C-alpha cells in the first residue's frame, strides 16, 4: 500500500463544477448574440469584440504579473468582461473604444479590488459608464449607420416597422418627426415622445402634432416593430439588440445551472408591471396600449442582456434568495424610473451598477432564517 493516503475533509466527491467552467459557459451563451451582430452589421463587430476581449485578458494578465499573484486569465472571467463591454458599444465605434473600455473595466473595475470575487460592481458596466462619461457622443450617437455596412432595412433602423403607417410623406409634413423615427433607437424615440415641447413643435398645427405623436407611439408598440426588436433588426449596441439570440443564451445558462431564475425573472417582471402601469405618454392622453407597451420595454435597449448576463454577475449580486428578489425589483424599478423620467433613454446599466453597490447591505438585511427557526 502507498505510504501516503490523502486525508481531506468531507465531502469527498464534487459535482465537477468550477469557476472556469461557469465563465466559459457564459462565453458560449453570449455567442448567439455575436452571430446576430455579425449578420446585421458585418465582421467589424467581431473585430471589435476580439479587441475588447484581448484587451481585457492582457490587462488582467499584466496586472496579475505585476502584483505577483497567479495568472488566472484562463478562467474566462476576463473574456466575459471583454465581451460584455464590447456588447455595450455600437457597431460603428472606433477600434480604440473597446480597448480603452476593457482596460478600464479590468484594471479599475476588477483588479484594483483584488480580482475575481472581490469587485464591488460589475466591471463591464463600470467600463461602459466610464466610456459614456468620457465619449458621450460615441456612446449615444448613431454611428452604426454611417460607418457600418449593415443589413438593416432603412425603415426599421429606428425600430418602427411600417413608416407609412405614420404617414406616406412624413419627411415633408414634419422633418423633425422624420428625423426622430429614422435616426434613433426605439427607446430614444420613446423618450423623445415624453418631451411635450418636442411634440408641440413637430408642425405648426397643434392637432397634427398630437396625431403624429400618437401615430409614432402606436408605431413603436406595433406588432411589426416588436418583431423587429425580437429578432434584433433595430439600432442599438452590438450585443443587445437581438432578444432572440440573447434568450437562446439565457436558456442555456439556466439549463446549465450557471445562473438562477430569481434575478432575471423579478427584474423583467418589475419592468413589465411598472411600464404597464406608468408607461403611457402624459402628453398623448389618447394613446391606447395593452400588453404591447410592457413587451416593448422588455425587448428594448439592453434589458434582456442586462437581466440575464449582467445583473446575474455572481460577485456583485446578493447571496440570499430573498436578497436576489429585492435586488432584481430594485434593478427593475430604477430602470423604469430612468427610462420614464430620467435624462437617458436607457437605464439598465446604471440601475444594475446602483444595485451592485447595494448588494452587501441587501445581503445583511435579508439573512435567511434557518430551517426550523422559531420566531422569538
Amino acid at each position, binding site marked *: *500500500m*502507498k505510504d501516503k*493516503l*490523502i*486525508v*481531506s*475533509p*468531507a*465531502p*469527498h*466527491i*464534487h*459535482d465537477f*463544477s*468550477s*469557476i472556469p*467552467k*461557469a465563465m466559459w459557459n457564459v462565453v458560449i451563451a453570449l455567442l448567439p448574440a455575436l452571430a446576430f451582430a455579425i449578420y446585421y452589421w458585418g465582421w467589424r463587430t467581431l473585430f471589435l469584440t476580439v479587441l475588447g476581449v484581448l484587451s481585457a485578458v492582457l490587462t488582467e494578465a499584466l496586472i496579475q504579473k505585476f502584483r505577483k499573484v497567479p495568472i488566472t486569465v484562463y478562467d474566462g472571467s476576463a473574456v466575459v468582461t471583454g465581451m460584455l463591454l464590447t456588447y455595450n458599444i455600437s457597431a460603428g465605434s472606433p477600434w480604440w473604444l473597446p480597448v480603452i473600455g476593457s482596460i478600464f473595466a479590468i484594471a479599475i473595475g476588477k483588479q484594483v479590488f*483584488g*480580482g*475575481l*470575487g*472581490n469587485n464591488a460592481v460589475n466591471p463591464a458596466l463600470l467600463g461602459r459608464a466610464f466610456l459614456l462619461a468620457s465619449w458621450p457622443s460615441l456612446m449615444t450617437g448613431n454611428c452604426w449607420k454611417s460607418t457600418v455596412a449593415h443589413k438593416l432595412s432603412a425603415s426599421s433602423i429606428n425600430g418602427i416597422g411600417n413608416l407609412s403607417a405614420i404617414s406616406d410623406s412624413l419627411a415633408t409634413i414634419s422633418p423633425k418627426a422624420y428625423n426622430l423615427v429614422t435616426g434613433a433607437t426605439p427607446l430614444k424615440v420613446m423618450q423623445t415622445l415624453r418631451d411635450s415641447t418636442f411634440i408641440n413643435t413637430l408642425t405648426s398645427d397643434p392637432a397634427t402634432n398630437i396625431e403624429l405623436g400618437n401615430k409614432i407611439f402606436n408605431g413603436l408598440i406595433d406588432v411589426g416593430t416588436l418583431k423587429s426588436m425580437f429578432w434584433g433588426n433595430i439600432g442599438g449596441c452590438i450585443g443587445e439588440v437581438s432578444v432572440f439570440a440573447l434568450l437562446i443564451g439565457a436558456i442555456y445558462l439556466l439549463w446549465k*445551472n450557471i445562473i*438562477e431564475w430569481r434575478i432575471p425573472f423579478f427584474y423583467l417582471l418589475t419592468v413589465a408591471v411598472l411600464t404597464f402601469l406608468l408607461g403611457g405618454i402624459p402628453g398623448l392622453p389618447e394613446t391606447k396600449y395593452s400588453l404591447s407597451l410592457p413587451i416593448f420595454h422588455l425587448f428594448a435597449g439592453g434589458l434582456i442582456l442586462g437581466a440575464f448576463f449582467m445583473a446575474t454577475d*455572481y*460577485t*456583485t*449580486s*446578493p*447571496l*440570499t*434568495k430573498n436578497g*436576489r428578489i429585492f435586488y432584481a425589483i430594485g434593478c427593475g424599478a430604477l430602470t423604469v424610473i430612468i427610462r420614464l423620467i430620467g435624462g437617458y433613454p436607457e437605464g439598465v446599466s446604471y440601475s444594475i451598477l446602483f444595485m451592485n453597490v447595494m448588494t452587501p447591505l441587501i*445581503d445583511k438585511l435579508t*439573512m*435567511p*432564517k*434557518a*430551517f*426550523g*427557526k*422559531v420566531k422569538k
Partner: protein
Amino acid sequence: MKFKTFPGGVHPPDYKYYTSSVPIEEFPIPKKVIIPMSQHVGAPSLPLVKVGEEVKTGQKIAEANAYVSIPQHSSISGKVTKIDTFLNPIGAMSLAIEITADGSDSWIDLEDEPDFLSLPIEEMKNRIQEAGICGMGGAGFPTIVKLSPPEDKPIDTVILNGVECEPYLTADHRLMLEQAEGIINGLKIIMKILKAQYGMIGIESNKPDVIALMNKLLAPEDNLKVVPLKLKYPQGAEKQLIYAATNRKVPTGGLPMDIGVVVQNVGTSFAIYEALRYKKPLVERIITVTGTAVNNPKNLKARIGTPFSDLVNYCGGTKCEIGKVISGGPMMGNALPSLEAPMAKGTSGLVLFNEKEAKTIEERNCIHCARCVDVCPMNLVPSLIAQGVKGGDLKLAVKAGLEDCIKCGSCAYVCPAHIRIVQWVDTGKLRVAAEQQSK
C-alpha cells in the same frame, strides 16, 4: 407513487450499482479485533477487563460510564492482548481494547424469547442498553437516551431511517431486503417503549425493491406505513427526513422529541429486535466495502472491531493504488490515514478511491455565486459562514447559520471555488465553543 422530500439538497451520482444487488455475505471471524471505547456520542465506555483475560463472544468488556454512554462487548472469543490508544474509524486516536481470537468463536449464552413484545417496558430498555446499542446510521447517539424522552414530551411518531442517501452505501438497503421482518419488529418495540401511535419507514426512490417489500409486509398494519422519498441528498438527515415524512420542523437547537418524533436507523431497529428477542449484544453489523479501488465490492456482515484491511483483503484486495480511504460515505465520511482502523457500530461503509478520485483541488476566492445558498437544506448562507470563520469574524459566521449547520456537505459539493466549507464550519464550531468556555 408520491415521493416526498425537503427543500434544497443536491443530486450526487449514487454509485450504488457496485453492491446494491450483492447479497450480504458473512465475513469470517477475524484474527483480532480492536474495540474502541468511543463508538458513540457521549462519555467513553470504561474497560472491565485486563490484558491477558479470556473473553467470550458477546461478553461485556466495558461499561457505560455516564447516562449518555453505552457498554461494549467482545465481538469474538479470545484473549485481551492490549488496552491502548488505537486509530479509530473517525481518523483520531482513542482508547480501545484489542482482542486476539482463539478461533472457537464461543458465545455467551443467548436465549430465545418469541413473545418479546410482551416484555415489560423497563426490561425492554434494560436489554437495549445492556446490548450496547447506539445509532448505527453514523452519528452513534446512545439509543437508550432517544428512547427515554422526558414525560412532558409525548412521542406520537417513530420513523425508521432507511433512506441511505450517501452514495455508494447499500448496507441498509440489503439489510432491509434480507431482514425486513426483524426491522419491523424493532419498529414495533420502539413504538411500544415510546407509546407512539404511528410508525413509518422512510425509503428513497432508488430502492423500489425495498419499498415494494415493506409495503407488502406493512399492508395489514393500520398504524405502520412506508414513506417513499425522493432521491436527493441529504434526504436521510434527521431533520430533513422528519420534515418530508411528517411536515414537522425540528426547532433549531431542539430535538426531534420536541415535536413528538423519534428517528432510528433501520440497522439500529434490527439490533434492538435481536437484543430483545435473543439478548444478543451488538457485536456485528452490515458494512458496504466498495469504491473504484476495490476488486470485488461486497456487503459484509462483520464483527465490530474488525480492521478495515481484513475487510478489503476479503473483497479481493485492491486493483490499483488506493488514493483515499473513507469510513462511511463520501459525503460525510472520514478520510483515514491508514487501513488499520477498525470498523465501529456506526460504520456503514468503507469506500476506497483510486488516486485520481482522491485528488484535491485548491481553494480559490469565493465568487459569491450563491450555489451553496441554493442547495443548503438548512437554509443557511454557507459561503458567509466560511468567510466569517476564515476572516476571524465569528459573529458573521453565526449570523449566517454556523450553529445550525448539519455538516451534510451539500455546499462544498457544489462549490465551484472548491472551498472546504465543512472544514471551516468545524473550525468555527470549535472556536465558538472555546469562546463560550472562556466566558
